[in-house]
């Protein structure tokens, strides 16, 4: 027994040595300081699961009404996201498009409807290239319209795993690769009519994620990333690769693109404004500007008339 005993102990010891540093304490501290809520899905899974039910219903209705459910290829290679990763590097990565409305359901459906026709690929950069130890964007809006944007610190690897694991449906597949100093992870989900490709390319170019989901998948992502931010005003990451938005289930705000170049942010904002969203304001802004939102343009909080804002 002694031989096996010693070998297993050495094995565990070496594994422990290989374990990377975790950001968990920082997550706790940040969440306590900012909202007394827990970021992402840590500890919020039961609530998120419950919330997923109405979200699924909403998404299903949206899919039925708008015919928005898209049968995607089995899975999409990550080449497109790899291509956009460079665009997301540096300061440009902080550009985002934000929509603010009062009816999340209507907003989500409207965005989904419009996004279905939007073919541009956008990447999500939950990992800030400027602060590579941070991963998930978090936005709060004050009563006066001021905005605070920060990034919750999170283990990239953990985030990727969570993203895949918590969207777990039959056929999920995962790949991870540890590239030394630059961690690269890829998560591939393959379902009957759903494809999720999550790629990370951590290094000088930052981090990119691409998600293709059906309605149920969107709801799952929303429940994963959104419901934990139960306090109104939180925004979760989202993107529109091939026209699939992900929305926050909890707040009144919808982030439909992040990690975009300024040009893409403007174009997406223009696109969304072309057919105004209900009760919403669309703006493209640089969240790291301390002076508050740097709106490219904005529409009033009431639905504008036909033809744009």
């Amino acid at each position: 027994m002694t031989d096996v005993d010693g070998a297993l102990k050495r094995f565990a010891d070496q594994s422990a040595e290989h374990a990377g540093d975790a950001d968990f304490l920082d997550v706790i501290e940040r969440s306590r300081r900012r909202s007394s809520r827990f970021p992402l899905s840590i500890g919020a899974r039961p609530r998120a699961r419950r919330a997923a039910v109405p979200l699924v219903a909403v998404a299903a209705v949206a899919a039925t009404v708008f015919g928005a459910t898209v049968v995607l290829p089995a899975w999409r290679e990550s080449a497109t996201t790899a291509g956009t990763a460079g665009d997301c590097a540096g300061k440009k990565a902080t550009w985002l498009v934000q929509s603010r409305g009062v009816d999340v359901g209507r907003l989500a459906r409207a965005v989904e409807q419009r996004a279905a026709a939007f073919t541009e690929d956008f990447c999500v950069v939950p990992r800030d290239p400027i602060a590579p130890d941070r991963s998930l964007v978090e936005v709060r809006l004050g009563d006066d319209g001021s905005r605070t944007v920060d990034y919750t610190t999170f283990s990239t690897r953990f985030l990727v795993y969570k993203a895949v694991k918590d969207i777990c449906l039959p056929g999920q597949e995962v790949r991870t690769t540890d590239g030394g100093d630059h961690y690269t992870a890829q998560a591939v989900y393959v379902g009957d009519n759903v494809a999720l490709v999550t790629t990370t390319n951590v290094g000088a170019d930052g981090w990119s994620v691409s998600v293709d989901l059906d309605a149920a998948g969107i709801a799952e992502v929303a429940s994963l990333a959104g419901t934990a931010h139960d306090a109104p005003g939180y925004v979760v990451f989202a993107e529109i690769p091939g026209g699939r938005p992900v929305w926050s289930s909890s707040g009144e705000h919808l982030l439909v693109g992040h990690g975009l170049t300024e040009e893409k942010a403007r174009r997406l904002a223009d696109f969304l404004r072309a057919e105004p969203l209900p009760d919403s304001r669309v703006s493209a802004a640089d969240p790291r500007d301390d002076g508050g939102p740097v709106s490219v343009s904005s529409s009033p909080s009431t639905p504008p008339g036909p033809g744009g804002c």
Partner: protein
Amino acid sequence: MTNGGRVDERGFADFYEGCRRRLVGELSVVLTSVAEAEDVVQEAFAVAYLQWRKVSSYDEPAAFVRRVALNLAWKRQRTSRRRGAAVERLGAARWPDDRSSEEYVDLAAALRDLPFDQRVALMLFHTADMSVAAIAHQLDVPEGTVKARLSRGRAALRARLAYDEETTS
């Protein structure tokens, strides 16, 4: 999350820093992957944090985290075949890495061939230093079952790693 009061975050932080790596090491025996062990341990700590007021009163809070992590590992195990197929298909070389010793690599391969239950038993007994009775209690199985799993697991590892006592003696 902490319904009803503030969490003793300093206490939790000390607890986290004190035993996270050890638990990752232990769970790596079960999951044969450091990265996955980190993930389940991370999530188990999150669960512990949410119940920290209660968990901190336990004689051994780490045992709670270990148990949660094992449950998560078990759930993960159920999808491991698909995951493994993807890893193989996508050609990922993820673990062990270049830093690993030959013994480490061999043992990782040997562990992967063991049934999940045997890996759990080996981990709890050899790396978590739990008694057979305690393992049986935690896993809710008879002690004889634990002994059988340990025996088979050791035998399989010895066979794979040429740890035949006659050879080593």
